[in-house]
């Protein structure tokens, strides 16, 4: 047993010795590095080291959580936590944490990620964008790497170590003041990580986006770029959390077993080794697995931890969140179309490449709007004919899910900021009849 795992176990033993029913402790030693750039230059390089142990403790269905930093004041903190549990309020719906011994897959994390010279990758991506967008390029973005050693011990049996790595380069390229494109390159390992790809994509879209015209309101068929699809998957995927369902911040309330989208849609949550969200166990120590959320259009499951699973009379899906469950890495199954075939299928529509600021009027009904940004293009008779600006999607999340008519064979692992988050494996998506509005 490693020293850190032993210290983590000691936290659990202290809680049990005081009289706690269950204790789960998870220590993360995280090394995070980020280079931020704009105007084609590096603005700042940042490193943060974090030594933290998350502790969850239950006593007679009272559930309390805390954090211990760098194993400081462990005795005092656990004692206080236990006292807090005793003065807390019973949660009659509390269903406990996972029980049993589990076997975990071996982590395939890449430890070399910690010491990359990020500046070099950034400058390469900028140059790749410049080749596409031209000499007036103005690019900004981030490169980020994460290396986490994770040690988990539960009084209910689970015990294990994990290493989680991720690397990401996100670049937004401007060819003109209002002509931009965004590219991302995301991976769990440096092998195959290609910043040029992100730079080229951003630069190409920025070039295509030159001289945009103000868009026109109406209903359009839309081709969503994988980055935009990533934001949509994040929206739909988060609504499959049993927690969101219970507080009605979801369009999927009471829809298990029902058709929620067209037959061609199969959506999964898969914290696979390629993903930036790679992991071998969840926050209770349950081995993570692939969960099919929507199977050929039918909603199959919500995402659960042990406690929400008991409320819904089912099994945990390995998606704890010690308090609330959520998705790790969403996948939309590949379809049978190419991007070109999608284009040919559109008589008058739009190709939208990125979005931000998605906000709901009502999560239960699904009414919302979101603002496309970066390249947005008018398609006429199967060809991109204009670059657009200043439009908004103002529609309904459930209706849009039902209007998916095409999915590409090609998929990309994407993550961007707080929008395409959690990460996903996203294809191009063709959707019918989406409402576009604009300011007056």
């Amino acid at each position, binding site marked *: 047993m490693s020293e850190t795992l032993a210290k983590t176990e000691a936290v659990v033993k202290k809680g049990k010795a005081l009289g706690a029913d269950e204790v789960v402790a998870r220590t993360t030693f995280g090394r995070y590095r980020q280079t931020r750039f704009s105007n084609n230059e590096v603005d700042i390089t940042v490193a943060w080291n974090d030594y933290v142990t998350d502790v969850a403790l239950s006593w007679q269905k009272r559930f309390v959580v805390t954090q211990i930093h760098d194993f400081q004041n462990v005795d005092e903190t656990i004692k206080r936590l236990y006292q807090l549990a005793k003065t807390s309020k019973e949660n009659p719906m509390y269903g406990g944490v996972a029980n049993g011994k589990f076997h975990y897959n071996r982590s395939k994390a890449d430890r070399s990620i910690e010491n990359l010279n990020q500046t070099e990758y950034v400058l390469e991506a900028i140059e790749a964008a410049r080749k596409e967008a031209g000499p007036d390029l103005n690019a900004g973005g981030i490169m980020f790497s994460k290396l986490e050693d994770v040690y988990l011990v539960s009084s209910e049996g689970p015990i294990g170590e994990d290493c989680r790595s991720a690397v990401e380069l996100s670049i937004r390229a401007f060819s003109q003041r209002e002509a931009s494109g965004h590219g991302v390159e995301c991976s769990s390992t440096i092998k195959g990580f290609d910043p040029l790809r992100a730079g080229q994509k951003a630069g190409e879209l920025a070039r295509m986006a030159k001289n945009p015209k103000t868009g026109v309101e109406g209903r359009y068929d839309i081709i969503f770029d994988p980055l935009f699809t990533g934001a949509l998957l994040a929206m739909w995927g988060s609504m499959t959390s049993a927690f969101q369902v219970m507080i009605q911040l979801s369009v999927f309330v009471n829809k298990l077993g029902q058709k929620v989208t067209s037959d061609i849609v199969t959506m999964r949550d898969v914290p696979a080794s390629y993903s930036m969200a790679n992991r071998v166990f969840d926050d209770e120590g349950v081995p993570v697995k692939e969960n099919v959320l929507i199977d050929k259009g039918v909603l199959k499951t919500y995402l659960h931890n042990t406690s929400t699973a008991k409320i819904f009379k089912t099994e945990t899906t390995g998606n704890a969140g010690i308090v609330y469950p959520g998705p790790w890495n969403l996948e939309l199954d590949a379809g049978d179309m190419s991007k070109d075939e999608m284009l040919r299928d559109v008589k008058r529509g739009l190709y939208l490449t990125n979005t931000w600021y998605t906000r709901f009027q009502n999560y239960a009904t699904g009414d919302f709007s979101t603002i496309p940004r970066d390249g947005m293009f008018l398609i006429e008779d199967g060809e991109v004919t204009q670059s657009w600006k*200043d439009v908004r999607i103002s529609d309904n999340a459930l209706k849009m899910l039902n209007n998916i008519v095409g999915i590409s064979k090609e998929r990309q692992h994407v993550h961007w900021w707080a929008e395409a988050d959690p990460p996903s494996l996203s294809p191009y998506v063709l959707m019918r009849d989406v409402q576009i509005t604009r300011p007056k």
Partner: protein
Amino acid sequence: MDKDIADFALSYAQSKKVDYAEIRAHTEKQEGLAMKNGVLDAYFVSVDHGFCVRVLADGGIGFASTNKWTKEEARAIVDMAHKFAKMAKRKEKITFTEEKSVKVNWKAEEKKKISDVPSETRIETMAEIDKDLTSHGINVPSRMLQMGSNLTDKYFINTEGSAISSYVPRINVFAYITVVENGKPEQTYKQFGYSGGWEALDHWKLKEQMISETKVLQRVIKEAKAVKPGKMDLVCGSEVAGIAAHESCGHPMEADRILGREMSQAGRSFIYPDGPFWLGTRIGSEVVTVVDDPTIKSSYGYYEYDDEGIKARRRYLYKKGVINEFLHNRETAAKLKTRSNGSSRAINYDREAIVRMANTFVEPGDFTEEEIFEDVKEGLYMKSFTEWNIDDKRFNQRYVGREAYWIENGELKHPVARPIIETTTKVFWTAVDAVSKKVEYTAGTCGKSDPMQGVPAYMGGPLVRLREVFVK
């Protein structure tokens, strides 16, 4: 907090060839609870304390942080930040403005100490709110209530001789509720925030506000009618005026956005060098003055000195309808050849301080509330909003009314179902012809940067009347 370690880190940074270095140490004592449909899901406590170093060397900036309080770790993060700064290889060297060094201790007033409030009281307070929500005759099938407090001690020192210690306690409540009537749901989200102590509860009047909100939602479901789309007069309540002030004045006036430093995430601004809008350009009518002021005592965005040690003050962003003053930190101010106005904020020791708003609001005007309405023949009163968003240059925005009423001959008539104003910054502020006297504030968490930093903020205003704008 071990200030000796922080002092050691600064001396060690000074021993290197740096143009500037600072250490910022935080202790964040957090406590919170989440109550779902009357059941306490979890209670959270934590003490997080760590420190960061920011170094300016060779025209580049390096930043590193840790929560391990040892000299060895201090040396390691200083070395790392120094190395990062030199690695930047910038053609255009970054500089900071020259500012006076400051030695000061300051703290926010805390009449009823939060640390004296036991967990039982906090839980009981929220349980009572939940009980009130479910026992006044309106069907509220879903309630998510959260209460949190954060006691922040900071210690800031830099190579120019500044040394600032501060303490700010903050408390907040979030509520998501769903009202169902005749099978139809309406939802709302409310946030309350305060810098100070448990006396916040006396100010907020949570029970009255939450029950009132459920009545509004029920009335919307039962009585609200759609508005006939077209141009009309629009009276914005303080909540709507506040979000517009925040989104279409505060954000575009952040100098880091103006200079492109946030271009890939939060975006840029419709204001930029050599563009159609700059300092001195008219953006609104004569009656529009929007300010940002961190110095309002007890406000959620309250502070006396920013995270670069600069004294805070009121900033006049749009003054009498004209673009007047940007929000600056030392980096942006140096670039635009002015002085920092104390707008640099970070949410914790492990995040870079960047240009942020604090409390952004429309300044009061001369009109009584009666006068604002009495001159409207036909129009709409949008008291509060639900869905909203704005593009990343902060020009194309949309606000959807949550509580709204039809106005006829100066009188409020029936509720209106989700009226929408989707317009531009210029159209919005130019259409304002009257502003009332009394400012009210709403608490919010302003998101920006990567990794995301959500900072406490107020947004607010009086009643603001717009003439002949398109509402649908």
